[in-house]
């Protein structure tokens, strides 16, 4: 694995990262442009090995969400398009496939900012999530057992839930599609510490029990790197650093910029921060 900056646009060494199974998801040199002018992904490549948890880190505006939108085919609805590169899922090139079909092929995305169906009740939201499935009942109960809170409020209108409640619902809904690959865009966004623990514990568990493959975007790098097997760090639409989670956790840059640790390892108080960080030291 490389702690050195990776030259822009170069494909990372060979297919899947070391020690991983065959890549379930494989992005090669993906380039994304919004509104025909705004270049956001500049030849991004990453692999998500079957049965592993991969974390994608990066500062605001790096293009993380865009990456997931590209994978799940949501770009067209935002005047964005994949102008170069390929997206391979389960061995098939899905770069041109319609968003809905991608779900039936077994991926499901839990979007940044929840996007619950505001006018539907919690249970209706979950049913909608299972649109591609046959027997909904069982899955429903399962989700409720994982998120008891949802069970208690199953007939509440989703639009009136609190931020966190909506986040749980969004994740539950994504699971209703019984995906092979679950993509989570900042799942811990706005969640209380306790819940963050739960959710990551839950992700881990899905991964271990069902062998669910997970690609997760996180700002809470610490948590992410704890549960993840492999990590990617992106800046300005490129992968600038990647490697096994354990190693990334030890990487000094990561320590400083993502784990918010001083060189000496201990966490420094926010009060001690006296200067604004200069950005993008990898470029």
């Amino acid at each position, binding site marked *: 694995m490389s702690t050195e900056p990776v030259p822009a646009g170069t494909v990372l060494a060979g297919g899947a990262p070391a020690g991983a199974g065959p890549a379930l998801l494989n992005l090669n040199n993906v380039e994304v442009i919004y509104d025909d002018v705004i270049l956001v992904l500049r030849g991004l490549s990453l692999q998500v090995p079957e049965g592993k948890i991969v974390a994608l880190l*990066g*500062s605001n505006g790096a293009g993380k969400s865009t990456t997931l939108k590209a994978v799940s085919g949501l770009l067209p609805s935002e005047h964005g398009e994949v102008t170069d590169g390929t997206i391979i899922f389960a061995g098939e090139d899905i770069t041109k496939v319609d968003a809905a079909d991608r779900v039936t092929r077994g991926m499901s995305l839990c979007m940044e900012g929840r996007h619950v169906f505001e006018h539907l009740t919690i249970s209706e939201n979950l049913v909608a999530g299972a649109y591609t499935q046959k027997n909904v009942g069982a899955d429903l109960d399962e989700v409720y057992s994982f998120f008891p809170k949802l069970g208690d409020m199953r007939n509440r209108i989703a639009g009136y839930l609190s931020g966190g409640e909506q986040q749980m619902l969004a994740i539950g809904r994504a699971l209703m599609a019984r995906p092979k690959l679950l993509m989570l865009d900042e799942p811990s966004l*706005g*969640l209380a*510490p306790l819940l963050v623990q739960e959710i990551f514990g839950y992700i881990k568990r899905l991964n*271990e029990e069902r062998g669910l493959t997970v690609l997760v975007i996180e700002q809470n790098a*610490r948590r992410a790197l704890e549960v993840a097997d492999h990590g990617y760090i992106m800046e300005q639409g490129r992968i600038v650093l990647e490697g096994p989670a354990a190693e990334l956790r030890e990487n000094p840059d990561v320590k400083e910029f993502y784990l918010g640790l001083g060189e000496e390892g201990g966490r420094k108080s926010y009060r001690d921060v*006296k200067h604004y960080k200069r950005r993008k030291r990898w470029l």
Partner: protein
Amino acid sequence: MLTRAYQHSLNGSSRPQGLPLLEVDDISLRFGGVRALTSVSFTVTQGHVHAIIGPNGAGKSSLLNCISGIYHPQEGQIRLHTGGGTDIEGREVAERSHLLTQLPSFKVARLGVARSFQNIELFSHLSVLENLMLGRHIHMKHSVLASMLWFGPARKQEIEHRHLVEEVIDLLQLQSFRHKPVGSLAYGIQKRVELGRALCIQPALLLLDEPMAGMNAEEKEDMARYILDVHELAGVSVVLIEHDMNVVMDISDRVSVLDFGRLIADGTPDEVKADPAVIEAYLGSDSDNPADAAAVREAVEHLTEEGTDA
């Protein structure tokens, strides 16, 4: 320090440090059957950073919405005290207290209560500059004819207020986005713009709903720095909702904890941190210190087991 250079104070309060600024007095809020808040009371002191924490759905945002007049609690009062000191221009201001619970939110804003929202609520089609200028709305005169005429008062006013706005832009390092439509900016930047819009009001009280959600450690440090600058240098009082305990513990002077709409604790960060009820309801086996990252794995294992036999 940057902000010393600024000529406009961002603090719109004329209240001497240490006096009570905001009194939340036994308020209850219901939505049909849902009890979002149940007899909550606490006091925000002038010059404090007052954090509100609690599990999801505890009623934190609702509380903020009550203070800023977006929701109106069925019971209880919220009082904002102004005056008793000198205002920005150094004039003596008589002491007054206002019943926020009876005001529409635009009137609350005119008392200098500024806020940011949990899910960013910017004017997405407008540029960063326009969004910030809108922060000046309550300080500007709006006559239809003068506006249509442009030359004369309208133009003069625009330029006048532009000065303060530019200072905010400078403080928050938004220079490069000045003329960008906020809709297309990345999440983190939008959060900053929203803070800026609130600052342009020259707030007497600043309400921030999860200003650091969705930021990485580094960006949090910046945001924390901005908030501290505003607080320390301008002396603006801040009420802050935040889930990252490190931030809360580091920058707040006082913490109130909500759970299921009730106030379960209220005190200094350390008191609260130690409070078993809080740990039970909210923090859990907090482990944001990687030293005991093991704790998480435990938590994970723990969950795993109960899950498997569930």
